[in-house]
């Protein structure tokens, strides 16, 4: 007598919740579990199509880490095949009627490819775009994530013209070439787009980008696409009137856009120390004057910046700032010390945290300190910088 199978007794919707965190390939395979499971997978509101599911985990690699090319081609072919068939047979929410297709909550596509092989794949790549659009049309996801290791181009504006992106609320792109279009005035392709995240992307917007509905923006180690750089062209300006949260991680390649974000509540900026235009950094700080919570990481002492013009604006007052965290910053400057500037310009600062910062030799207490500072936390990295700050 078979022991009771409690899992299969759960109602469809709960099984679908369980299945929704599995990769698409495994999801489809559940059809073979038993009769009860035959069509359960079709109603799962999330699709995670990941090429890594098609990579043999134990494939041998040669000493350069490259795997057998024929094996790779075979894997790619299977993945291709899977993607096509999935589109044909996945009737989410319906009995095969096109009209009954309920839109997906989230669609995630992860393609992996070695860069040297990508050139051979160019014809396939064009097919990929067609496939992507067929997916967007069929599933109309509310959240879309595309993670690519080869030079895939995503142009939201063009995508929006070709497919219906009206449900799109969250967009996450990693490793793609983004050709712009997420905020142009002319066409509002994504009227509900609120959360955008770019990681390791080449971003190609220029001029003024207006993103009216955007609430959260993350730009992580991205850079401008080469073909949009012009000498002397003004830096792209991002106007995001509803933006509440901004996170920037700037690598050495980054240019810094100009942000106009009147509603910004929290911002977190991390920068490295080489080759970034310091004036731009400073201007960025000035643009963040209305935040409530601010984190800065990796900023140099400001007097190490060579001002292009002497009449540079002073740091504006940060009226709303209540929480400040400085990490890995150089606070040794005598004239333009970042910490001093903030203490002077942030009258409502309540909580200050210093982490891994380079502190001056002598912490002279004669500096003006905020009276309303409630909580100070200093985490020192080096033994020499033992804090003797009494507060």
């Amino acid at each position, binding site marked *: 007598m078979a022991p009771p199978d*409690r899992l299969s007794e759960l109602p469809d919707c709960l099984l679908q919740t369980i299945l929704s965190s599995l990769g698409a390939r*495994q999801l489809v*395979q*559940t059809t*073979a579990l038993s009769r009860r499971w035959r069509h359960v997978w079709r109603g799962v509101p*999330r699709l995670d199509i990941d090429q890594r599911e098609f990579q043999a985990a134990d494939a041998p690699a040669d000493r350069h880490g490259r795997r057998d090319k024929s094996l790779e081609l075979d894997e790619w072919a299977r993945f291709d095949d899977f993607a096509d*068939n999935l589109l044909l047979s996945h009737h989410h929410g319906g009995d095969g009627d096109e009209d009954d297709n309920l839109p997906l909550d989230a669609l995630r596509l992860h393609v992996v490819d070695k860069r040297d092989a990508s050139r051979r794949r160019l014809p396939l790549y064009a097919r990929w775009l067609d496939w992507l659009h067929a997916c967007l049309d069929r599933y109309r996801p509310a959240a879309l994530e595309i993670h690519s290791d080869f030079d895939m181009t995503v142009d939201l504006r063009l995508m929006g013209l070709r497919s219906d992106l009206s449900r799109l609320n969250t967009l996450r792109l990693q490793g793609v070439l983004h050709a712009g279009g997420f905020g142009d005035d002319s066409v509002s392709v994504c009227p509900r787009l609120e959360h955008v995240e770019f990681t390791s992307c080449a971003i190609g917007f220029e001029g003024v980008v207006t993103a009216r509905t955007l609430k959260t923006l993350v730009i992580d*180690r991205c850079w401008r696409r080469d073909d949009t750089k012009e000498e002397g062209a003004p830096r792209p300006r991002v106007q995001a009137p509803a933006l509440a949260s901004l996170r920037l991680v700037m690598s050495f390649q980054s240019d810094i856009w100009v942000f106009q974000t009147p509603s910004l509540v929290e911002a977190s900026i991390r920068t490295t120390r080489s080759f970034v235009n310091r004036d731009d950094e400073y201007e960025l700080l000035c643009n963040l004057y209305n935040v409530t919570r601010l984190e800065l990481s990796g900023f140099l002492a400001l007097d190490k910046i060579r001002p292009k013009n002497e009449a540079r604006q002073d740091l504006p007052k940060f009226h709303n700032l209540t929480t400040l965290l400085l990490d890995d910053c150089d606070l040794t400057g005598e004239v333009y010390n970042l910490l001093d500037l903030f203490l002077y310009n942030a009258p409502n600062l309540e909580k200050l945290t210093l982490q891994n910062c380079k502190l001056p030799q002598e912490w002279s207490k004669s500096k003006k300190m905020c009276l309303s500072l409630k909580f100070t936390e200093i985490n020192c990295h080096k033994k020499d910088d033992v804090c003797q700050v009494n507060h």
Partner: protein
Amino acid sequence: MDSTADPKGKRPLYQEDGLAYARAAAAAASATAAAAPDEEEAKPKPKPSSSSEEAKPEPEAEDQAEMPPLVLVAEDGVEVSISRRAARMSHMLRLLMEDSCADGPIPAPNVHSDILDLVVQYCEKHGPYYDPEASERARNPFPPFPVELTPTVSSIKPVTYVDPDPHGLKDWDKDFISLDNSTLFEVILAANYLNIEDLLDLGTTTVADMMRGKKPEEIREIFEIENDYTPEQEAELRKENAWAFED
């Protein structure tokens, strides 16, 4: 943590009906409380596992903490009390509290008392930290695919990065959810009935983790799923969907 619940077969979801049913029953119960006392006392019993003790001496001046705990009645008639603060985690109970229908005993007819104990235990643990809005923000439409090896770039956690475990409850959750399969499914059903999203997430992702990376044969074994396809049917099925299966 052995479940002594009777195998009841597929439990239908009475989500909407459940709320109405609970409300009506609560109203009826408080009306008849004086007339016909239950075998248990009408007052909530202080149970050692649930924390009516925890709820009352709450230092923060929250009105809810002052009020008496809710009483849930399991399918076997046993009463389980849950503090108001913990009860917030259940959307259903939250609505009842808001509508002031939560003063009398609240029936949970599909849930055995052992399971209800577990559920209450979870809510009491997470209750003090529960913020419905934060929970909503943290609900990531893209939970990380397990094989992902993205290293964190920043040494600091930026403000925009929602810490998935700000109160160090992950380990506790891991221990809590290491139950035998039957109990786990019952907890999932109970969390679904009471609409406790965090617990439902915990339960369903645990099951998904058990399934991940395994072939159908292996999954059948883990969950004792009986394969009721005939060999011919199964072969046909696999052929039809060859694009998804390996070799």
